[in-house]
C-alpha cells in the first residue's frame, strides 16, 4: 500500500477522531498532518500489517493527547510570561474556541457543555468514551486500540459515564 492510498483510506478517520479530541478544525488539521508525517516515516514497517486501521487510531490518539498537553504547556508558559513581562506581545497562548464542524447549530450549546466535561476526564477515560460513544466502536475494538483487555475498557467507560453524569448534574444545579 502506498502512502497516498493509506492517506486516502484513512484521512477522514484521522481528521474526525482528532476533531473529537480538540473540537476545533484548525487544531484537528494540525494533528492530522502530524499523524500522516508519522505514517510516512514508518511506512516500511507498516506495509506488512494486514489492517493498519488500529495502528492509525493509536497514532491519532497519541498525537491528539500530545497536542493537548503541548497547548496546556503553552498556556502555562504564556501566563508566566505575562506575569514577568506584562507588555510582551510575543508569546501568547493561542486560544481557539469550540468549532466542531460535525455539530449542528441547534445542538452546539449542549454538546459544547458535554465536551467541556469530557475534556476534564482522565486521558484513558476520555479516549474510551470517545471511541465508544462517538466513534461507535465495540469494546473489543477499543481494547485492541488501547492495548487493554475488554474488562478494563468496560470499567473505563463506566467510570467516565459516572463522572460525566455527576459533573453534568452539578452543572444543572448551578
Amino acid at each position, binding site marked *: 500500500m502506498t502512502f*497516498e492510498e493509506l492517506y486516502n483510506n484513512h484521512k477522514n478517520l484521522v481528521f474526525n477522531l482528532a476533531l473529537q479530541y480538540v473540537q476545533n478544525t484548525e487544531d484537528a*488539521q494540525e494533528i492530522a*498532518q502530524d499523524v500522516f*508525517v508519522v505514517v510516512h516515516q514508518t511506512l516500511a514497517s507498516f506495509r506488512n500489517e494486514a489492517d493498519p486501521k488500529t495502528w492509525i487510531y493509536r497514532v491519532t490518539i497519541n498525537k491528539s493527547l500530545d497536542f493537548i498537553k503541548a497547548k496546556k504547556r503553552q498556556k502555562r508558559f504564556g501566563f508566566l510570561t505575562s506575569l514577568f513581562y506584562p507588555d510582551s506581545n510575543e508569546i501568547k497562548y493561542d486560544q481557539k474556541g469550540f468549532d466542531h464542524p460535525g455539530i449542528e447549530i441547534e445542538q452546539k450549546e449542549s*454538546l459544547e457543555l458535554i465536551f467541556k466535561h469530557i475534556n476534564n476526564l482522565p486521558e484513558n477515560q476520555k479516549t474510551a468514551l470517545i471511541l465508544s460513544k462517538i466513534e461507535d466502536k465495540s469494546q473489543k475494538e477499543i481494547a485492541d486500540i488501547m492495548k487493554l483487555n475488554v474488562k478494563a475498557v468496560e470499567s473505563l467507560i463506566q467510570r467516565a*459515564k459516572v463522572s460525566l453524569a455527576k459533573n453534568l448534574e452539578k452543572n444543572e444545579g448551578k
Partner: protein
Amino acid sequence: MENDFDILKNIKLVNAPDFLFTRIISKIENRLAIKISKGAAISWSVSLVIVVIVNVTVLLSQSQTTKQETMIESMNLLPDNNLYE
C-alpha cells in the same frame, strides 16, 4: 444518564479538507531537508574536529623535536650513541 450521551451520536462525520494532503507533503519535504542539512552540518563539524586534532598533534610533535634538538645542541652532544664524531 444514557440520554445525555445519546446526543454524542448526532455528531456528523466531516470530510478532511482537500488541501491537507499538500500540506502533509510539504511538511514531509521540510523535515527531509532539515534532516539532510543536519547530516551535512554534523559531517562538516566532525571533519573540522579531525583536521584540528591532526594539526595540533603535528604541531606538538614538531615542537617536541625542536626542544630536544635545541637542548642537544646547547650541550654540544651528539643526538646518537656515538661517543666521537
